[in-house]
């Protein structure tokens, strides 16, 4: 009899356990599924709004400049949780063009629901994809930001003018790219989120508002003097600029959950 009652109570314990675990699962289910996240890119030059063609700016070296083209790629967007787990969003390749408003607000789909404390992304295109075959979507070379003669993606492009530039028509033309040593310009940045983090749910669409400061091409680790460097495509000068912009071109402004 005694053994039976032990058996009964064990069964009860087991049942309670099952129920408890069911409950736990039910709680987690509200965090199951996937959601969407909007990424808004607000292009700036220091404290000023970036205005193509008309905005007048000064770099950290004190050189005047204007911007006619500002485009950049980001990829491998990853959302990180407090427990250290990471969710890399597959096929997250974005091309942002300051001249095309549609590209400054982008939606990232298939983000696993959850609470996130930071995000990582690559400025540019990862090496694997950079050396893969013909691509489509944001990586379609028909969209530009691509070198046909030295195959590969241009990661960040800034063109404009400065009275200090010694090029014809005082032009500035910075084309950053290259995914091979010794001139590898692939850079990864991590942006910690503010208190409250990012809450992704299947039934809501939070928005991350990023500030993108073009002035960081020309400061951060090396102040750029337009009289001595007014343009390049790839190479060691591109590495200098990539090292600069990795220090602060992208900043989190705020998140709407």
């Amino acid at each position, binding site marked *: 009899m005694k053994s039976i009652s032990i058996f009964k109570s064990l069964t009860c314990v087991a049942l309670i356990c099952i129920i408890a675990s069911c409950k736990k699962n039910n709680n987690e289910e509200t965090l199951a599924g996937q959601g969407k996240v909007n990424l808004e890119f607000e292009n700036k030059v220091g404290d000023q709004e970036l205005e193509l063609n008309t905005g007048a700016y000064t770099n950290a070296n004190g050189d005047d400049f204007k911007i006619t083209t500002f485009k950049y790629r980001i990829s491998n967007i990853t959302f990180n949780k407090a427990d250290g787990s990471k969710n890399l969003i597959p096929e997250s390749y974005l091309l942002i063009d300051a001249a095309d408003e549609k590209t400054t607000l982008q939606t990232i789909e298939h983000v696993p629901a959850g609470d996130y404390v930071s995000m990582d992304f690559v400025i540019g295109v990862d090496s694997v994809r950079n*050396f*893969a*075959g*013909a*691509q*489509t979507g944001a990586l*379609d*070379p*028909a969209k530009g930001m691509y070198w*046909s*003669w*030295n*195959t*590969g993606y241009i990661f960040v492009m800034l063109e404009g003018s400065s009275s200090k530039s010694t090029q014809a028509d005082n032009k500035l033309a910075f084309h950053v790219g290259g995914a091979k040593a010794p*001139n590898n310009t692939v850079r990864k940045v991590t942006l910690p989120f503010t208190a409250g983090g990012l809450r992704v749910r299947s039934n809501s669409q939070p928005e991350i508002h990023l500030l993108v400061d073009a002035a960081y091409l020309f400061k951060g680790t090396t102040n750029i003097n337009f009289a001595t460097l007014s343009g390049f495509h*790839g*190479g*060691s000068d591109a590495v200098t600029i990539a090292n600069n912009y990795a220090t602060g071109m992208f900043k989190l402004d705020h998140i709407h959950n």
Partner: protein
Amino acid sequence: MVISLLTCWLVITVGCKKNDNEAPQTAIRFVVPSNFPTPVYQFTNNTVSNAGFDLGHRLFYENALSIDNSTNCGSCHQQFAAFANLDHQVSHGVNNCFGTRNSPPLFNLAWQQNFMWDGGVHHIELSALNAFVNPCEMANTLDNVVKTLNNKPSYPQLFISAFGSSEINSQRIFKALAQFTGMMVSANSKYDKYSRKQNGGEFTNDELAGYALFKQKCSSCHTEPLFTDNSFKSNGLELNPKDAGREIITLASADFGAFRVPTLRNVALTSPYMHNGSLSTLAQVLNHYNSGVKNHINLDAKLKQNGVLGIPLSATEQQKIITFLNTLTDNEFIHDPKFAELPPL
């Protein structure tokens, strides 16, 4: 019961026959020749199909790829010249514009790690892009190529057959072209038949002597069986080259004036020679290596052994090597109707 079984059998038999009759052509597939290494390009995510290959074939000979509807890939890559450009030192593109380098032959591209004389293009699927947009080749934009094909009535159906839907984008264009160019395998020269001990591969004494000399004097760079070691070297063509060659890509001064070591397969068909097309005959090429090599700053060490410039070759030796080089001509390849020029749609 017996009758119904018989009926079944008849239906099955008829069904089989009908399928056999309907089979329009044999399925095209990529085959690695037995004397070749493993290819670099494995058609990953781009499995060759008859429709994909046919679309690539059509695109290769499509004038609408060029800005003025005058030039196609076959303009500078002629089948009778093993898809090089006979009699042209450098390529001759739209608007009478001349490029700066000799149009290379196209075959065995699936074994190539990178493309162009300077190796700047690293994937076969992207090798056509440069020709589309170079102002001295087709002078087009990729965007416009896609738009133009979208506006040509015959193309949507070809893209449906090849890729399952009528969408025309650059990726599909490149993949179809890579199916066509990747399938261009040249492996049926007399030399190949000799290597594989097949009929038609019996070398004459002169060919054997030339082959022995070739292995001694040339094969350290022009390595069998593809007849290139895939490196970039200065071969002392010019003392002060205007074209920086591989340095443009690597930005390394040691690569200044270095160019791809080209394959020698079909070399008897691909005149003129060298990256700038400056030598018109094989005799001139052999003579260059014997006595014309200039002491360029990055001259390959193999061309400057014991302080002697070039590769000493007597007139007889040069002739024998040329005799061997003639065994590298693949007549089956240059007459293969699969790759032949197509009339406009």
